[in-house]
């Protein structure tokens, strides 16, 4: 993206992480380590929600940091550092998800699909429609429900939602990270939140589930 001369110094002044990255550009290893420390948790949180596997998320996060380092010489502060980092993360995650999807296609055997009861969201939905006594969902169960609901979103909806929720990015920043216009992000997030609301609605009323046979299943 072409940068006006006015925007470059602004990011440098406003964003301390941009200043760190400029030090990384000058081969400052300590600055790089500081950036890793600042962003590793945030990056892994988002990537884990995208790929659903912690070890894969960590591998991808390392790949992202490696790309950041390799790109240091050509780095120009044209955006907030986090936006630039998550642009790379978006590309890395998209590639990984494509690869995972291909692998899943290869491994899929006829009749080898998961049973519906193995899916927590599905299981809880079944429970919700049953006649069992209600009980309060515990935190990990609620997290499971949310995680499964997020998986119902498309990859792009998920990414936009996670960047909005966990990174507090504006539509313009998400657009930059995902190479979309702000208007497209607006539509994408609207659909994402509508779908999420639809998926979670039955489970968020009073935070209860009917039945207690989750452990039995």
């Amino acid at each position, binding site marked *: 993206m072409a940068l006006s001369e006015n925007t470059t110094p602004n990011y440098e002044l406003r964003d301390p992480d941009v200043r760190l990255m400029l030090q990384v550009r000058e081969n400052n290893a300590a600055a790089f380590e500081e950036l890793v420390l600042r962003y*590793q948790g945030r990056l892994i949180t988002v990537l884990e929600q995208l790929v659903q596997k912690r070890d894969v998320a960590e591998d991808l996060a390392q790949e992202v940091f*490696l790309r950041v380092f390799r790109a240091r010489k050509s780095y120009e502060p044209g955006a907030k550092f986090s936006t630039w980092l998550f642009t790379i993360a978006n590309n890395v995650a998209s590639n990984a998800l494509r690869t995972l999807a291909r692998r899943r296609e290869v491994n899929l055997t006829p009749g080898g699909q998961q049973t*519906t009861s193995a899916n927590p969201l599905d299981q809880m939905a079944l429970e919700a429609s049953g006649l069992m006594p209600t009980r309060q969902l515990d935190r990990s169960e609620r997290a499971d429900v949310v995680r499964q609901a997020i998986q119902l979103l498309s990859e792009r909806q998920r990414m936009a939602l996670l960047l909005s*929720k966990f990174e507090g990015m504006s539509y313009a920043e998400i657009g930059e990270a995902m190479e979309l216009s702000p208007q497209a992000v607006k539509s994408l*997030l*609207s*659909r994402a939140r*509508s779908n999420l609301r639809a998926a979670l*609605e039955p489970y968020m009323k009073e935070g209860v589930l009917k039945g207690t046979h989750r452990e039995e299943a």
Partner: protein
Amino acid sequence: MIIGAAAGDVPAAEFFRHVGLGKNSFPGLRGPLVAVMSETSSYHAEDGLYEQLVAYLDGELDAEGSRQIERRLAEDADFRRELQHLQRTWDMLDELPKADVQESFTQTTVELVVQSAAHELQENQQHERRTQRFTWAIGGSGVVAAVVASFWLLSSYLAHPNEQLLRDMPVIENFELLRVADSMEFVYQLDETGLFDEEVDDAL
């Protein structure tokens, strides 16, 4: 639009198809999902209203856009309920645990980068060496060629320094005779008869 303008089962089917689920996937979810979709679809039908509502929650609307949404919220109880549902769903995302990263991850990542940097440095050095070698090879070849050419020219000159003088010897020796010749053409004709050959051979 995944959840389209029309109410009912069709938009829900699109949603299921979009997320890669067949008709029989998530049977327990399907009923409530369709119900909620039908409930929200009326707002999707209104030109961009749902998008505006979400943008309002995200703080992305300008003053005029916000005023319009707030007016609608004040008038429409269902719209208010929709906003509350969206907000509660949004808050549920806080249930997702934040990644707790171990120190070893940082260490491994930095080590990985150090390795990469070392590799990069090695590659750069190799490239530099290759470039240097190439430059030296080109320069060296040029110098050698120049030396060989000079040597050849010099040696050929040094080997026969008096060649021209010797070649002219018959003329010099017969200078007095040639002076009386009428024309150079006559002298060339004499040369062609081989008159001076023996003398040239002797001189060389």
